[in-house]
Protein backbone atom coordinates (compact mmCIF):
# COMPACT_ATOMS: atom_id res chain seq x y z
CA UNK A 1 0.00 0.00 0.00
CA UNK A 2 2.80 2.43 0.96
CA UNK A 3 4.62 1.44 -2.21
CA UNK A 4 1.50 2.30 -4.20
CA UNK A 5 1.09 5.66 -2.45
CA UNK A 6 4.72 6.52 -3.16
CA UNK A 7 4.32 5.55 -6.80
CA UNK A 8 4.04 8.31 -9.42
CA UNK A 9 1.22 6.29 -11.01
CA UNK A 10 -0.80 7.08 -7.90
CA UNK A 11 0.50 10.52 -6.99
CA UNK A 12 0.17 12.15 -10.43
CA UNK A 13 -3.46 11.12 -11.07
CA UNK A 14 -4.42 12.20 -7.54
CA UNK A 15 -2.69 15.56 -8.04
CA UNK A 16 -4.45 16.14 -11.37
CA UNK A 17 -7.86 15.05 -10.05
CA UNK A 18 -7.56 17.53 -7.20
CA UNK A 19 -6.37 20.14 -9.65
CA UNK A 20 -9.34 19.56 -12.01
CA UNK A 21 -11.71 19.86 -9.07
CA UNK A 22 -10.01 23.08 -7.89
CA UNK A 23 -9.95 24.70 -11.34
CA UNK A 24 -13.53 23.58 -12.05
CA UNK A 25 -14.69 25.14 -8.81
CA UNK A 26 -12.66 28.32 -9.31
CA UNK A 27 -14.09 28.94 -12.76
CA UNK A 28 -17.58 27.61 -12.03
CA UNK A 29 -20.25 29.98 -13.30
CA UNK A 30 -22.63 29.11 -10.49
CA UNK A 31 -22.60 27.81 -6.95
CA UNK A 32 -23.36 24.30 -8.21
CA UNK A 33 -20.47 22.24 -9.63
CA UNK A 34 -21.81 21.01 -12.97
CA UNK A 35 -20.48 18.65 -15.62
CA UNK A 36 -19.84 21.58 -17.95
CA UNK A 37 -17.46 22.94 -15.28
CA UNK A 38 -15.59 19.63 -15.24
CA UNK A 39 -15.44 19.68 -19.04
CA UNK A 40 -14.11 23.24 -18.99
CA UNK A 41 -11.57 22.32 -16.30
CA UNK A 42 -10.39 19.35 -18.40
CA UNK A 43 -9.80 21.63 -21.40
CA UNK A 44 -8.10 24.14 -19.14
CA UNK A 45 -5.70 21.41 -18.05
CA UNK A 46 -4.39 20.68 -21.57
CA UNK A 47 -1.92 23.61 -21.40
CA UNK A 48 -1.29 22.88 -17.71
CA UNK A 49 -0.21 19.30 -18.54
CA UNK A 50 2.21 20.72 -21.10
CA UNK A 51 3.51 23.33 -18.64
CA UNK A 52 4.05 20.95 -15.75
CA UNK A 53 5.56 18.01 -17.67
CA UNK A 54 7.77 20.17 -19.89
CA UNK A 55 9.11 21.77 -16.72
CA UNK A 56 9.55 18.44 -14.89
CA UNK A 57 10.91 16.39 -17.79
CA UNK A 58 12.94 18.96 -19.74
CA UNK A 59 13.72 22.20 -17.93
CA UNK A 60 14.49 20.88 -14.46
CA UNK A 61 16.71 17.95 -15.58
CA UNK A 62 18.53 19.97 -18.26
CA UNK A 63 18.94 23.28 -16.49
CA UNK A 64 18.05 23.27 -12.78
CA UNK A 65 19.64 19.91 -11.93
CA UNK A 66 22.75 20.85 -13.93
CA UNK A 67 23.15 24.10 -12.01
CA UNK A 68 22.29 26.22 -15.09
CA UNK A 69 20.05 28.50 -13.07
CA UNK A 70 20.21 31.48 -15.43
CA UNK A 71 19.12 29.36 -18.40
CA UNK A 72 16.33 27.89 -16.31
CA UNK A 73 14.96 31.26 -15.26
CA UNK A 74 15.33 32.64 -18.80
CA UNK A 75 13.31 29.72 -20.15
CA UNK A 76 10.38 30.36 -17.79
CA UNK A 77 8.87 33.33 -19.74
CA UNK A 78 9.11 31.32 -22.96
CA UNK A 79 7.40 28.38 -21.31
CA UNK A 80 4.61 30.64 -20.03
CA UNK A 81 4.17 32.13 -23.49
CA UNK A 82 4.02 28.68 -25.09
CA UNK A 83 1.50 27.57 -22.45
CA UNK A 84 -0.67 30.60 -23.16
CA UNK A 85 -0.61 29.83 -26.89
CA UNK A 86 -1.61 26.23 -26.19
CA UNK A 87 -4.43 27.51 -23.98
CA UNK A 88 -5.76 29.62 -26.86
CA UNK A 89 -5.36 26.77 -29.34
CA UNK A 90 -7.18 24.41 -27.00
CA UNK A 91 -10.27 26.60 -26.77
CA UNK A 92 -10.21 28.13 -30.24
CA UNK A 93 -9.10 25.17 -32.36
CA UNK A 94 -9.25 21.90 -30.46
CA UNK A 95 -12.58 22.44 -28.66
CA UNK A 96 -14.54 23.24 -31.89
CA UNK A 97 -13.02 20.13 -33.48
CA UNK A 98 -14.48 18.02 -30.68
CA UNK A 99 -17.96 18.83 -32.04
CA UNK A 100 -19.23 19.02 -28.48
CA UNK A 101 -22.78 20.01 -27.59
CA UNK A 102 -21.38 22.56 -25.13
CA UNK A 103 -21.18 26.28 -25.83
CA UNK A 104 -18.20 27.75 -24.04
CA UNK A 105 -15.33 30.16 -24.40
CA UNK A 106 -12.31 30.91 -22.29
CA UNK A 107 -12.75 34.50 -21.19
CA UNK A 108 -10.02 34.53 -18.56
CA UNK A 109 -7.78 37.57 -18.83
CA UNK A 110 -4.16 36.83 -19.73
CA UNK A 111 -2.89 38.22 -16.41
CA UNK A 112 -5.05 35.74 -14.50
CA UNK A 113 -4.01 32.91 -16.82
CA UNK A 114 -0.30 33.65 -16.42
CA UNK A 115 -0.76 33.86 -12.65
CA UNK A 116 -2.38 30.43 -12.62
CA UNK A 117 0.36 29.03 -14.87
CA UNK A 118 3.01 30.49 -12.54
CA UNK A 119 1.35 28.97 -9.49
CA UNK A 120 1.41 25.53 -11.14
CA UNK A 121 4.99 26.02 -12.26
CA UNK A 122 6.21 27.02 -8.80
CA UNK A 123 4.10 24.44 -6.98
CA UNK A 124 5.20 21.48 -9.11
CA UNK A 125 8.83 22.63 -9.11
CA UNK A 126 8.79 22.82 -5.31
CA UNK A 127 7.17 19.39 -5.06
CA UNK A 128 9.79 17.97 -7.42
CA UNK A 129 12.67 19.60 -5.53
CA UNK A 130 11.36 18.54 -2.13
CA UNK A 131 10.93 14.96 -3.37
CA UNK A 132 14.49 15.00 -4.74
CA UNK A 133 15.72 16.39 -1.43
CA UNK A 134 13.78 13.74 0.50
CA UNK A 135 15.19 10.97 -1.71
CA UNK A 136 18.69 12.35 -1.21
CA UNK A 137 18.14 12.43 2.55
CA UNK A 138 16.93 8.83 2.50
CA UNK A 139 19.98 7.73 0.50
CA UNK A 140 22.27 9.61 2.88
CA UNK A 141 20.50 8.07 5.87
CA UNK A 142 20.82 4.56 4.46
CA UNK A 143 24.45 5.20 3.60
CA UNK A 144 25.07 6.46 7.11
CA UNK A 145 23.31 3.51 8.69
CA UNK A 146 25.32 1.12 6.51
CA UNK A 147 28.56 2.82 7.49
CA UNK A 148 27.69 2.79 11.21
CA UNK A 149 26.81 -0.90 11.08
CA UNK A 150 30.05 -1.53 9.26
CA UNK A 151 31.98 0.34 11.97
CA UNK A 152 30.24 -1.62 14.73
CA UNK A 153 31.01 -4.94 13.11
CA UNK A 154 34.66 -3.90 12.84
CA UNK A 155 34.81 -3.78 16.65
CA UNK A 156 33.72 -7.33 17.31
CA UNK A 157 36.42 -9.28 15.46
CA UNK A 158 39.10 -6.96 16.87
CA UNK A 159 37.96 -7.48 20.44
CA UNK A 160 37.24 -11.17 19.89
CA UNK A 161 40.71 -11.73 18.51
CA UNK A 162 42.37 -10.22 21.60
CA UNK A 163 40.09 -12.05 24.04
CA UNK A 164 40.59 -15.41 22.36
CA UNK A 165 44.34 -14.83 22.61
CA UNK A 166 43.95 -14.33 26.37
CA UNK A 167 41.82 -17.47 26.72
CA UNK A 168 44.29 -19.41 24.59
CA UNK A 169 47.12 -18.35 26.91
CA UNK A 170 45.11 -19.40 29.98
CA UNK A 171 44.14 -22.71 28.40
CA UNK A 172 47.77 -23.46 27.58
CA UNK A 173 48.68 -22.74 31.19
CA UNK A 174 45.69 -24.84 32.31
CA UNK A 175 44.57 -21.87 34.41
CA UNK A 176 41.57 -22.22 36.73
CA UNK A 177 40.47 -18.82 35.54
CA UNK A 178 39.76 -20.05 32.00
CA UNK A 179 36.07 -20.83 32.59
CA UNK A 180 35.56 -17.46 34.30
CA UNK A 181 37.22 -15.74 31.36
CA UNK A 182 34.94 -17.53 28.90
CA UNK A 183 31.91 -16.44 30.97
CA UNK A 184 33.07 -12.81 30.97
CA UNK A 185 33.61 -13.00 27.24
CA UNK A 186 30.14 -14.47 26.80
CA UNK A 187 28.59 -11.56 28.75
CA UNK A 188 30.45 -9.05 26.63
CA UNK A 189 29.44 -10.70 23.38
CA UNK A 190 25.81 -10.76 24.54
CA UNK A 191 25.99 -7.01 25.07
CA UNK A 192 27.61 -6.49 21.70
CA UNK A 193 25.06 -8.66 19.93
CA UNK A 194 21.86 -7.32 21.44
CA UNK A 195 22.49 -3.81 22.74
CA UNK A 196 24.47 -2.24 19.96
CA UNK A 197 21.51 -2.36 17.55
CA UNK A 198 20.18 0.74 19.31
CA UNK A 199 21.34 4.15 18.18
CA UNK A 200 21.97 5.17 21.79
CA UNK A 201 22.21 3.10 24.98
CA UNK A 202 22.21 4.11 28.67
CA UNK A 203 25.69 5.22 29.73
CA UNK A 204 25.27 3.02 32.80
CA UNK A 205 25.10 -0.12 30.64
CA UNK A 206 28.09 1.00 28.62
CA UNK A 207 30.06 1.51 31.85
CA UNK A 208 29.05 -1.96 33.11
CA UNK A 209 30.29 -3.43 29.85
CA UNK A 210 33.60 -1.59 30.19
CA UNK A 211 33.99 -2.80 33.79
CA UNK A 212 33.36 -6.38 32.61
CA UNK A 213 35.93 -5.95 29.90
CA UNK A 214 38.45 -4.54 32.35
CA UNK A 215 37.83 -7.48 34.69
CA UNK A 216 38.29 -9.81 31.76
CA UNK A 217 41.59 -8.21 30.88
CA UNK A 218 42.76 -8.15 34.48
CA UNK A 219 42.56 -11.90 34.52
CA UNK A 220 45.56 -12.07 32.26
CA UNK A 221 47.55 -9.29 33.92
CA UNK A 222 50.12 -9.37 36.67
CA UNK A 223 48.87 -8.26 40.02
CA UNK A 224 51.28 -5.41 39.93
CA UNK A 225 49.50 -3.91 36.96
CA UNK A 226 47.66 -0.73 37.76
CA UNK A 227 44.29 -0.28 36.11
CA UNK A 228 42.25 2.57 37.44
CA UNK A 229 38.65 3.36 36.53
CA UNK A 230 37.06 6.28 38.35
CA UNK A 231 33.55 7.61 37.88
CA UNK A 232 32.22 11.05 38.79
CA UNK A 233 28.75 12.48 38.42
CA UNK A 234 25.32 10.98 37.81
CA UNK A 235 25.03 8.33 35.09
CA UNK A 236 21.28 7.82 35.41
CA UNK A 237 19.38 8.90 32.30
CA UNK A 238 22.49 9.72 30.29
CA UNK A 239 22.68 8.08 26.86
CA UNK A 240 25.65 7.35 24.64
CA UNK A 241 26.34 5.68 21.29
CA UNK A 242 27.00 1.98 21.99
CA UNK A 243 30.63 0.80 22.05
CA UNK A 244 31.91 4.32 21.45
CA UNK A 245 34.38 4.22 24.36
CA UNK A 246 35.18 0.56 23.97
CA UNK A 247 37.87 0.84 21.23
CA UNK A 248 39.74 3.42 23.35
CA UNK A 249 39.83 1.09 26.38
CA UNK A 250 40.70 -1.87 24.19
CA UNK A 251 43.59 0.03 22.60
CA UNK A 252 44.87 1.05 26.02
CA UNK A 253 45.04 -2.56 27.12
CA UNK A 254 46.60 -3.57 23.85
CA UNK A 255 49.36 -0.97 23.98
CA UNK A 256 49.68 -0.26 27.69
CA UNK A 257 50.20 -3.78 29.00
CA UNK A 258 52.81 -5.28 26.76
CA UNK A 259 56.04 -5.41 28.64
CA UNK A 260 56.92 -6.74 32.04
CA UNK A 261 57.71 -3.40 33.45
CA UNK A 262 56.32 -2.67 36.87
CA UNK A 263 55.40 0.77 35.64
CA UNK A 264 52.67 -0.43 33.31
CA UNK A 265 49.32 1.25 33.96
CA UNK A 266 46.01 2.36 32.52
CA UNK A 267 44.12 5.24 34.04
CA UNK A 268 40.49 5.75 33.02
CA UNK A 269 38.32 8.63 34.23
CA UNK A 270 34.68 9.27 33.39
CA UNK A 271 32.99 12.48 34.53
CA UNK A 272 29.32 13.08 33.84
CA UNK A 273 28.06 16.56 34.60
CA UNK A 274 26.80 18.91 31.88
CA UNK A 275 28.86 16.91 29.40
CA UNK A 276 30.36 13.45 29.27
CA UNK A 277 34.13 13.73 29.78
CA UNK A 278 36.11 10.58 29.19
CA UNK A 279 39.85 10.41 29.67
CA UNK A 280 42.08 7.39 29.20
CA UNK A 281 45.85 7.32 29.70
CA UNK A 282 48.20 4.41 29.25
CA UNK A 283 51.91 3.69 29.17
CA UNK A 284 53.40 3.13 25.75
CA UNK A 285 55.47 0.00 25.31
CA UNK A 286 58.52 -0.23 23.00
CA UNK A 287 56.71 -2.77 20.84
CA UNK A 288 54.17 -0.10 19.83
CA UNK A 289 56.62 1.55 17.49
CA UNK A 290 57.09 -1.69 15.59
CA UNK A 291 53.40 -2.56 15.39
CA UNK A 292 52.25 0.93 14.60
CA UNK A 293 51.99 0.34 10.91
CA UNK A 294 50.19 -2.95 11.32
CA UNK A 295 47.57 -2.37 14.02
CA UNK A 296 47.93 1.13 15.30
CA UNK A 297 45.10 3.53 14.81
CA UNK A 298 42.32 1.18 13.62
CA UNK A 299 40.26 1.54 16.82
CA UNK A 300 40.96 5.26 17.10
CA UNK A 301 39.98 5.92 13.48
CA UNK A 302 36.82 3.95 14.07
CA UNK A 303 35.96 6.18 17.05
CA UNK A 304 36.74 9.35 15.09
CA UNK A 305 34.47 8.35 12.20
CA UNK A 306 31.62 7.39 14.49
CA UNK A 307 31.95 10.67 16.38
CA UNK A 308 31.69 12.57 13.09
CA UNK A 309 28.57 10.63 12.13
CA UNK A 310 26.75 10.48 15.47
CA UNK A 311 27.96 13.63 17.24
CA UNK A 312 28.63 16.09 14.42
CA UNK A 313 29.94 19.40 15.84
CA UNK A 314 29.18 18.33 19.40
CA UNK A 315 32.28 16.51 20.51
CA UNK A 316 35.88 17.26 21.30
CA UNK A 317 38.60 14.66 20.88
CA UNK A 318 42.14 15.42 22.04
CA UNK A 319 44.98 12.93 21.59
CA UNK A 320 48.17 13.52 23.54
CA UNK A 321 51.20 11.37 22.87
CA UNK A 322 54.61 11.52 24.51
CA UNK A 323 57.46 9.05 24.28
CA UNK A 324 56.14 7.08 27.22
CA UNK A 325 52.45 7.89 27.50
CA UNK A 326 49.39 7.97 25.32
CA UNK A 327 46.30 9.90 26.36
CA UNK A 328 42.91 10.42 24.80
CA UNK A 329 40.44 13.00 26.13
CA UNK A 330 36.92 12.84 24.74
CA UNK A 331 34.16 15.27 25.59
CA UNK A 332 30.61 14.73 24.38
CA UNK A 333 28.58 17.91 24.63
Amino acid at each position, binding site marked *: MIKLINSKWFQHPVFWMLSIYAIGNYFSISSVFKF*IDVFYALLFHVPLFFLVYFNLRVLIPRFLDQGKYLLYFLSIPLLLLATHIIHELTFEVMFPLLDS*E*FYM*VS*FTEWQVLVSIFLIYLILTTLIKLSKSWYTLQQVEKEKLSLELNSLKTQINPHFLFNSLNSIYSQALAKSDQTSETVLELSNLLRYMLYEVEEEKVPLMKEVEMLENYIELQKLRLEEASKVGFTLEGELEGVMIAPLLLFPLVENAFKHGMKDDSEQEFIDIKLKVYTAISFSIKNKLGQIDDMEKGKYGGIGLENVKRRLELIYPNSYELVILKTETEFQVNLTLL
Partner: protein
Amino acid sequence: MQKAKSILAIGFLVVLLNSCVYSLFPIYTDDTLVYFPELLGRWEMDDEDYIEFRNTSSGPSFFGSSESADLSKNKEYAIEIMEGGDLIKFKGHIAKIGDDLFLDLYPDDPYSAEGLGSNMIPVHTFAKLKFSGKQLYLTSFDLEKLNKLFESNLIRLRHENVDGTILITAQPKEIQKFIDKYSDDESVFEDTETYKKAS
Protein backbone atom coordinates in the same frame (compact mmCIF):
# COMPACT_ATOMS: atom_id res chain seq x y z
CA MET B 1 -34.35 33.88 -6.57
CA GLN B 2 -36.88 36.22 -4.96
CA LYS B 3 -34.23 38.90 -4.92
CA ALA B 4 -33.46 38.30 -8.55
CA LYS B 5 -37.14 38.64 -9.37
CA SER B 6 -37.34 41.96 -7.67
CA ILE B 7 -34.53 43.51 -9.64
CA LEU B 8 -35.79 42.67 -13.08
CA ALA B 9 -37.83 44.62 -15.49
CA ILE B 10 -37.93 41.90 -18.05
CA GLY B 11 -41.68 42.13 -18.46
CA PHE B 12 -41.18 45.62 -19.76
CA LEU B 13 -39.20 44.32 -22.72
CA VAL B 14 -40.88 40.99 -23.19
CA VAL B 15 -44.05 42.69 -24.32
CA LEU B 16 -42.44 44.04 -27.45
CA LEU B 17 -39.29 42.04 -27.98
CA ASN B 18 -40.50 38.64 -27.03
CA SER B 19 -37.65 36.80 -28.69
CA CYS B 20 -34.74 38.82 -27.37
CA VAL B 21 -32.06 37.75 -24.94
CA TYR B 22 -31.68 39.79 -21.75
CA SER B 23 -28.52 40.92 -20.05
CA LEU B 24 -27.75 42.79 -16.89
CA PHE B 25 -24.70 44.37 -18.55
CA PRO B 26 -24.39 45.97 -21.99
CA ILE B 27 -22.85 44.12 -24.88
CA TYR B 28 -20.57 47.03 -25.78
CA THR B 29 -17.37 48.38 -24.36
CA ASP B 30 -15.55 51.57 -25.42
CA ASP B 31 -13.27 49.75 -27.82
CA THR B 32 -16.16 48.09 -29.65
CA LEU B 33 -18.54 51.05 -29.99
CA VAL B 34 -19.26 52.23 -33.53
CA TYR B 35 -21.58 54.89 -34.89
CA PHE B 36 -23.17 55.07 -38.33
CA PRO B 37 -24.89 58.39 -39.23
CA GLU B 38 -26.49 56.66 -42.23
CA LEU B 39 -28.65 54.64 -39.81
CA LEU B 40 -30.46 57.79 -38.69
CA GLY B 41 -34.05 57.86 -39.80
CA ARG B 42 -37.03 55.53 -39.88
CA TRP B 43 -36.84 51.95 -41.11
CA GLU B 44 -40.17 50.25 -41.82
CA MET B 45 -41.02 46.58 -41.80
CA ASP B 46 -44.66 46.95 -42.83
CA ASP B 47 -47.37 49.58 -42.62
CA GLU B 48 -47.41 49.62 -38.82
CA ASP B 49 -44.12 48.32 -37.45
CA TYR B 50 -40.96 50.33 -37.71
CA ILE B 51 -37.70 51.22 -35.99
CA GLU B 52 -36.37 54.75 -35.90
CA PHE B 53 -32.80 55.86 -35.14
CA ARG B 54 -32.31 59.44 -33.95
CA ASN B 55 -29.54 61.54 -32.46
CA THR B 56 -29.66 61.66 -28.69
CA SER B 57 -30.41 64.98 -27.04
CA SER B 58 -27.77 66.20 -24.62
CA GLY B 59 -28.53 65.69 -20.95
CA PRO B 60 -27.26 64.08 -17.76
CA SER B 61 -25.75 60.68 -18.38
CA PHE B 62 -26.93 57.59 -16.59
CA PHE B 63 -23.26 56.71 -15.97
CA GLY B 64 -22.25 60.12 -14.59
CA SER B 65 -19.56 62.25 -16.16
CA SER B 66 -16.77 59.75 -16.66
CA GLU B 67 -14.79 59.55 -19.89
CA SER B 68 -16.31 56.18 -20.61
CA ALA B 69 -19.80 57.53 -20.22
CA ASP B 70 -18.98 60.43 -22.54
CA LEU B 71 -17.78 58.04 -25.22
CA SER B 72 -20.88 55.88 -25.00
CA LYS B 73 -23.00 59.03 -25.06
CA ASN B 74 -21.29 60.26 -28.22
CA LYS B 75 -22.05 57.03 -30.01
CA GLU B 76 -25.56 56.66 -28.71
CA TYR B 77 -28.80 56.54 -30.66
CA ALA B 78 -32.27 57.37 -29.48
CA ILE B 79 -34.34 54.51 -30.82
CA GLU B 80 -38.09 54.12 -31.15
CA ILE B 81 -39.61 50.78 -31.92
CA MET B 82 -43.21 50.44 -32.99
CA GLU B 83 -44.45 46.88 -32.80
CA GLY B 84 -48.06 45.73 -32.72
CA GLY B 85 -49.30 49.25 -32.06
CA ASP B 86 -47.06 49.83 -29.03
CA LEU B 87 -44.24 52.32 -29.06
CA ILE B 88 -41.19 51.84 -26.88
CA LYS B 89 -38.21 54.17 -26.62
CA PHE B 90 -34.64 52.96 -26.10
CA LYS B 91 -31.11 54.13 -25.86
CA GLY B 92 -29.22 52.28 -28.56
CA HIS B 93 -25.55 51.44 -29.03
CA ILE B 94 -23.90 49.47 -31.78
CA ALA B 95 -20.93 47.24 -30.98
CA LYS B 96 -18.66 45.72 -33.59
CA ILE B 97 -17.81 42.24 -32.35
CA GLY B 98 -15.65 40.28 -34.73
CA ASP B 99 -17.07 40.93 -38.18
CA ASP B 100 -20.61 41.48 -36.97
CA LEU B 101 -22.56 44.42 -35.63
CA PHE B 102 -24.80 44.09 -32.61
CA LEU B 103 -27.44 46.53 -31.49
CA ASP B 104 -27.70 46.98 -27.72
CA LEU B 105 -31.04 48.33 -26.52
CA TYR B 106 -31.69 49.81 -23.12
CA PRO B 107 -34.91 51.47 -21.87
CA ASP B 108 -34.77 55.21 -22.52
CA ASP B 109 -36.21 56.26 -19.20
CA PRO B 110 -36.17 53.09 -17.15
CA TYR B 111 -36.92 54.44 -13.69
CA SER B 112 -40.04 56.36 -14.55
CA ALA B 113 -41.55 53.93 -17.00
CA GLU B 114 -44.94 52.63 -16.16
CA GLY B 115 -44.93 49.34 -14.40
CA LEU B 116 -41.42 49.77 -12.98
CA GLY B 117 -41.11 50.18 -9.25
CA SER B 118 -38.15 51.68 -7.43
CA ASN B 119 -36.92 48.21 -6.51
CA MET B 120 -36.51 47.16 -10.12
CA ILE B 121 -33.77 47.84 -12.62
CA PRO B 122 -33.97 47.56 -16.36
CA VAL B 123 -31.96 45.20 -18.49
CA HIS B 124 -30.18 45.23 -21.84
CA THR B 125 -31.20 43.28 -24.86
CA PHE B 126 -29.41 42.88 -28.16
CA ALA B 127 -29.77 41.69 -31.73
CA LYS B 128 -27.49 41.20 -34.68
CA LEU B 129 -27.64 44.14 -37.09
CA LYS B 130 -26.77 44.50 -40.74
CA PHE B 131 -27.53 47.28 -43.16
CA SER B 132 -26.78 48.07 -46.74
CA GLY B 133 -28.16 51.04 -48.61
CA LYS B 134 -31.90 51.07 -48.01
CA GLN B 135 -32.14 47.75 -46.17
CA LEU B 136 -31.73 47.06 -42.45
CA TYR B 137 -31.62 43.52 -41.11
CA LEU B 138 -32.19 42.64 -37.45
CA THR B 139 -31.66 39.10 -36.25
CA SER B 140 -32.69 38.23 -32.72
CA PHE B 141 -31.38 35.35 -30.68
CA ASP B 142 -33.62 32.29 -30.45
CA LEU B 143 -34.68 32.78 -26.87
CA GLU B 144 -36.46 29.45 -26.64
CA LYS B 145 -33.41 27.58 -27.82
CA LEU B 146 -31.10 29.58 -25.59
CA ASN B 147 -33.33 28.95 -22.59
CA LYS B 148 -33.21 25.24 -23.26
CA LEU B 149 -29.45 25.30 -23.61
CA PHE B 150 -29.06 27.26 -20.39
CA GLU B 151 -31.48 25.00 -18.51
CA SER B 152 -29.59 21.94 -19.76
CA ASN B 153 -26.32 23.48 -18.56
CA LEU B 154 -24.89 23.38 -22.05
CA ILE B 155 -23.91 27.04 -22.15
CA ARG B 156 -21.07 28.23 -19.99
CA LEU B 157 -22.01 31.89 -19.50
CA ARG B 158 -22.96 33.46 -16.20
CA HIS B 159 -26.71 33.82 -15.95
CA GLU B 160 -29.78 33.67 -13.70
CA ASN B 161 -33.00 31.88 -14.44
CA VAL B 162 -35.91 34.17 -13.53
CA ASP B 163 -39.23 32.38 -13.79
CA GLY B 164 -38.04 30.47 -16.81
CA THR B 165 -36.47 33.48 -18.48
CA ILE B 166 -32.73 33.62 -18.69
CA LEU B 167 -30.98 36.81 -17.64
CA ILE B 168 -27.32 36.91 -18.63
CA THR B 169 -25.19 38.27 -15.81
CA ALA B 170 -21.79 37.95 -17.49
CA GLN B 171 -19.53 40.97 -17.93
CA PRO B 172 -19.46 42.76 -21.33
CA LYS B 173 -16.07 41.30 -22.32
CA GLU B 174 -17.27 37.78 -21.58
CA ILE B 175 -20.43 38.31 -23.61
CA GLN B 176 -18.43 39.78 -26.49
CA LYS B 177 -16.06 36.83 -26.62
CA PHE B 178 -18.97 34.42 -26.48
CA ILE B 179 -20.88 36.19 -29.23
CA ASP B 180 -17.76 36.51 -31.35
CA LYS B 181 -17.34 32.76 -31.25
CA TYR B 182 -20.95 31.79 -31.88
CA SER B 183 -22.25 34.65 -34.04
CA ASP B 184 -22.03 32.41 -37.12
CA ASP B 185 -23.99 29.62 -35.48
CA GLU B 186 -27.39 30.04 -37.17
CA SER B 187 -29.04 27.58 -34.82
CA VAL B 188 -29.09 30.12 -31.98
CA PHE B 189 -30.66 32.92 -34.05
CA GLU B 190 -34.19 33.44 -35.25
CA ASP B 191 -35.19 34.46 -38.75
CA THR B 192 -33.96 37.84 -39.84
CA GLU B 193 -36.41 40.74 -39.92
CA THR B 194 -35.91 43.13 -42.82
CA TYR B 195 -36.65 46.85 -42.64
CA LYS B 196 -36.62 49.36 -45.47
CA LYS B 197 -35.50 52.96 -45.17
CA ALA B 198 -38.57 55.18 -45.10
CA SER B 199 -37.12 58.65 -44.80
